[in-house]
């Protein structure tokens, strides 16, 4: 049984047997004796994507460092809601891992439930960020008020867009679960989705530290 599912998973992923109608998706790792890489196609693409997103925020960071050194820099206070939002986002990473643990134990209902919880926590985070913007605006702090506030609005906005991408990916993983596309060995969309989710989560912690602790 175990062996069979493994074989099936291999075929679904294109398999090493690249001529069996799976198109160019075959030859994972090139099948070259020396250079074979046991990495799934999606994983390479995902890591490349994370690298480019990292560079995007590195670009913003360098701008932040330069701008922070100018004489008109006035820090804004942390909107209190951010602590709560951060807690929401961190717990979403935990619930996502809980979901995945249910997949390993093959309890699909629980898996779906926890995925939904994760996605809702993500949406709640985004809603919370919007409220934090409102909170600042209520104090008279707007986008052009000071360089710090400009960076705050821009960076939280760009981050939220990336998290929204994560929510969409999560929905995709959920649909896959609904359609019974997972087997105990084949659950790549979920694994990829989780890597991305934790990355965006970590990105927020980084931004939070940069904006308010440094």
């Amino acid at each position, binding site marked *: 049984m175990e062996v069979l599912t493994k074989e099936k998973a291999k075929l679904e*992923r*294109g398999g090493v047997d*690249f*001529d069996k*109608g*799976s*198109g*160019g*998706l*075959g*030859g*994972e*790792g*090139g*099948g*070259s*004796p*020396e*250079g074979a*890489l046991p*990495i*799934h*196609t*999606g994983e*390479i*693409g*995902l890591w*490349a*994507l994370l*690298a*480019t*997103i990292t*560079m*995007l*925020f*590195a*670009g*913003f960071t*360098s*701008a932040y460092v*330069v*701008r922070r050194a*100018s*004489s*008109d*820099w006035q820090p804004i206070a942390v909107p209190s809601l951010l602590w709560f939002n951060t807690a929401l986002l961190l717990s979403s990473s935990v619930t996502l891992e809980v979901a995945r643990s249910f997949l390993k134990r093959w309890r699909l209902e629980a898996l779906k439930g926890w995925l939904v919880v994760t996605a809702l926590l993500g949406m709640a985070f985004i809603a919370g960020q919007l409220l934090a913007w409102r909170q600042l605006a209520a104090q008279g702090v707007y*986008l*052009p008020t000071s*360089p710090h506030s*400009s960076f705050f609005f*821009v960076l939280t906005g*760009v981050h939220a867009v990336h998290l929204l991408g994560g929510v*969409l*990916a999560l929905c*995709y993983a959920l649909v896959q679960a609904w359609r019974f596309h997972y087997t105990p060995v084949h659950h*790549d*969309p979920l694994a*990829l*989705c989780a890597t*991305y989710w934790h990355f965006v989560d970590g990105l927020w912690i980084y931004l939070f530290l940069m904006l308010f602790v440094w």
Partner: protein
Amino acid sequence: MAKVHEPHVAHAPQSFIRRYIFSTDHKVIGIQYYVTAMLTGVVAGILAMLVRLNLAWPAHEWPLLGKLFPVGMEFGVMKPEFYISLFTMHGTLMVFFVLSLAPVSGFGNFLIPLQIGARDMAYPFLNALSYWTVLPGVIIMLSSFFAEGGAAAAGWTSYAPLSAVQEAIPGSGMGQTLWIIGMVFFIASFTMGGLNFVTTIINLRTKGMSMRRLPLTVWALFLVAILGLLAFPALTAAAVMLLFDRHFGTSFFLPAGMYVGDKLLAHQGGTPLLWQHLFWFLGHPEVYILMLPAMGFTSDIIATFSRRPIFSYPVMVLSMVAIGGLSFVVWGHHMFLSGMSPYLGMAFTVTTLVIAIPSAVKTFNWLATLWRAKIEFTAPMLFALGIVSLFVTGGLSGIFLGSAAADIPLHDTYFVVAHFHFIMAGASLFGVFAATYYWFPKMFGRMMNSKLGKLHFWLTFVAYYSTFFPMHYLGIGGMMRRIYDPTVYQYLAPMQPVNVFITLSAFVLGAAQLLFLFNFFWSVYKGKKAEQNPWNANTLEWTAASPPPHGNWEGPLPTVHRWPYDYSVPDVSDDYIPQSVSPAEVQARKKG
């Protein structure tokens, strides 16, 4: 990441639309990219002709042109702001939408699966999406000419504050906004392409195709994809901040105390230099994004037509890796005069000059490959040799510019214009031509006319040098780039005949391209039918039919047994051994 893999069916989709328009076949997408780039190139070329027209006869009255451009050339005289838009859009379109799209997205998509032995790219859907993302970008860019105030007018580098203040000049309004949006579409598309290239090359190589057996073209495209993924985000970040400065009152790039007319702007504290740093952090790798594919094409074409293994393959790969890596630490050489600490300038001088080493290594390896070879001077080979020539000419002027001290008088003069037209524009344009003549039989199943091709080469080559070489003298003579009318300066007026000569050469250069366009479209329909392997070349694409069917190979994928450069192997009857030939078959082919 949403599409983890697209189940790929071996039979081709039937309807015309799925097959040729919204196709996910890498060959169709490659050709779509190529044709888009070619048509954009025609527009960008016409813009250059207008720029040159004005430089030879500044502010002259051309009644006919006045009818064509009622706004920019009212009463037939080119307005300075129209002139600025012209060179801005010429540069932007050429750098991003022609010379990045044609070799990288065009040939990259077409060639990578064929050369590594895959049936398609790793993410065919993403691939189609990337094309349908760049197309709106092209359209937005082109349509900006019709926006209020005309197209963007801050140069292809879009330096702040000119680009960041809406009221600065007419083109800083809607035109600049459209420029930013067009670029965002381009970057999004290029990123999707890059993810696809990296994944495909790492994971979809056929059996036996180790990294050490990849054709140099694939190596170049692999590195280009990585450069694009790591460098473009800096521009994305900068573009986002620029949009906010322009439309939402932030001050990322705008300093205090700026006036437009008599009006004091509310911005304060920003640093225009920040834009330059972010732009050139992308900008310098970007110029190598244009150059590396040309290096790859040249290497493969030179090997084929000199019937010689490429000299020192590992060093060729390593020098490309070195060039790619170094290109991230030299951006400051564009900013020697922007107010930089001399010590930092010295550091950037050193890193810049170090790049000359791997560049020279590549040149000498090409020459060593050619040394005493029996060269077949076909059209693609002529263009490949042209690349080597342009690369040397442009590289040498780069060394002058790279030394901070020598750059002080040369910066922002026509010397720089000469430099980058040789190395970036010229070498990569010739790369596109070389690749087109070489792979056309595979793309369309027909040959291009070789007599016309050679004529095209000689006209282009001679006109190219006579257009751009005299610019070195203009630059040393102090003619600044981006100037509307050099004759307003007394010291430049005596050099005006040179400008007239350059313009006439440029017209010849432009006209010569009509030969290419004619040859291309005529050959698509009427060219001689191409054999499977018309050049007797070794790489895998030549083992597929011309043009290859959907899925590339009718039967099983080829297996690779050797590197791609087994030309003129001693004691073997043919002078080439394709990558898919096994050692046993070679034994059988041994002479005697």
